[in-house]
């Protein structure tokens, strides 16, 4: 059954028991973004210390794919340098574009999201958290994040 590819146990587990889902007081870096199609929303908080993502948490609401991806991301990225994290983001994107073969060591639970590739419209859900993280890290100056072009 095709649905097994997407609703794997590990995904549902991260969805129901999200890791690192909390505010991070005093975070140097934070960013919020939503998916305009569906309203899924993710905020990422990070302590960046000497070029390293020392601690990484998230808040948000949305579907199992967006929320589990965020949860897995906080596990996979924490402790890496900013550059390594951005590289990982690129590789994750590559996996979701069907271009990069995932590597268990680096990806950990994230490998489970590979099945989402077969559901093109859900890919945006899977990469949302990574978009936010990337934006947060690239743009440490802004505290409130990436809401573009407000009216008025």
């Amino acid at each position, binding site marked *: *059954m*095709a*649905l097994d590819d*997407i*609703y794997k*146990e590990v995904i*549902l587990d991260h969805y129901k028991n999200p890791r690192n889902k909390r505010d991070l007081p005093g975070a140097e870096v934070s960013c919020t973004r939503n998916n305009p*199609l*569906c*309203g*899924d*929303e993710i905020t990422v908080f990070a302590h960046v210390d000497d070029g390293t993502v020392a601690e990484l948490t998230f808040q948000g*609401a*949305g*579907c*199992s*794919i967006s929320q589990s991806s965020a949860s897995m991301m906080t596990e996979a990225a924490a402790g890496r340098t900013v550059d390594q994290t951005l590289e990982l983001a690129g590789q994750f994107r590559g996996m979701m574009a069907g271009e990069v073969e995932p590597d268990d060591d680096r990806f950990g639970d994230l490998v489970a999201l590979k099945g989402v590739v077969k*559901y093109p419209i*859900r890919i945006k*859900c899977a990469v949302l958290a990574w978009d936010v993280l990337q934006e947060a890290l690239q743009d440490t100056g802004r505290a409130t994040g990436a809401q573009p072009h407000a*009216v*008025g």
Partner: protein
Amino acid sequence: MNTFDVEAVRRDFPILERTFDGKPLVYLDSGATSQKPAQVIEAESAFYRLHNANAHRGIYTLGEEATEAYEGARSRIARFFGVEDASRLVFTRGTTESINLVAYGWGRASLGEGDEILITEMEHHSNIVPWQLVAQATGARLRYIGLTDDGLLDLSNLGELLGDRTKILGVTAMSNALGTITPLKQLVDAAHAVGAIVVVDAAQAAPHMPLDMDGLEADFLAFSGHKMLGPTASGGLLAKRELLDRLQPMFGGGDMIREVFHDHATWNDVPYRFEAGTMQVAQQVGLAAACDYLDALGMEAVRAHEVEITRYAIDRLLEAGAVVYGPKDTDIRGGTVSFWYHDIHPHDLATILNEEGIAVRAGHHCAQLVMRRYGTPATVRASFYVYNTNEEVDLLVASLARAGDIFAS
């Protein structure tokens, strides 16, 4: 037609032959866009094969045929809404463009500080954002009629919201997120009593129930052809004639002018002054065929069919433990049913239903204020039309159980 023969209707819709992994398409997203009967597809392509030319321009026979087809479509579509004077119908791409035309041509042209625009929290973004832009450009104030817990307009403080300062009331005839049919006549009367004009968003109502533009006494009424069996890019804005005479054109260009000088231009007659450049000729011809199709079914019969299926769907969904938004009484709602099933996120639910060939929408339905009002970021929405059956509802409900299993595991 006395009895509604849904099987005969279904045979007119080629797309219903599609299967996905062997499962027939169960299309429950007509609220987003309707499917098209062969008659409409053929009307549009016959125009290209036989009569295509630029309307209103050519002196040759083909050009006359194109003009007749285009203006014939205008009369036909106006008549669908009970309007005999075809010059009261301005063609547009659909509801969004129609509302923006009023927002630019009336709102920006006539509002200022101290004026108020009143809309409802039930509106589609297309009847909110244009008015926000008007308010920002003119200094007018944008106010909202709220919603009750049951998904109705909260009219308890209407006397406070609607007053001498109110210049425009924008209201949907039927909510695309909740299904609610609004008490239009009451609102129109109240607005007229204080001298406000009423802009009705009929995107959802026009396809699904009889609408009598003049019975309603609406000032402007916007609709989309693609939601009422017509081609994409068809639709229009109906208006009282004397308001069109005062509406300012939005777009400059060919065919909307009478004379052009270096520094200024003069306008063509109504409604042509609002139709700048080459319009969606073949598409409006297709929409006229859609009006023929719907009138042959009879809009009362269409409404009755949808009431039946909606009643059935709501009952079955509630039985299955779903939370259904909006009114449950089919007298005051259309066939658009928003719900949550257990705590399965709408996206997940839609993906699982899709595996069974069932097409439902999941999201905020371009009605974020409604979502926020009821404290949810999204719902699943099943919306019914002439080609849907109770058996399809059964399939929907059976598939919900399956989704429950996956998320319970």
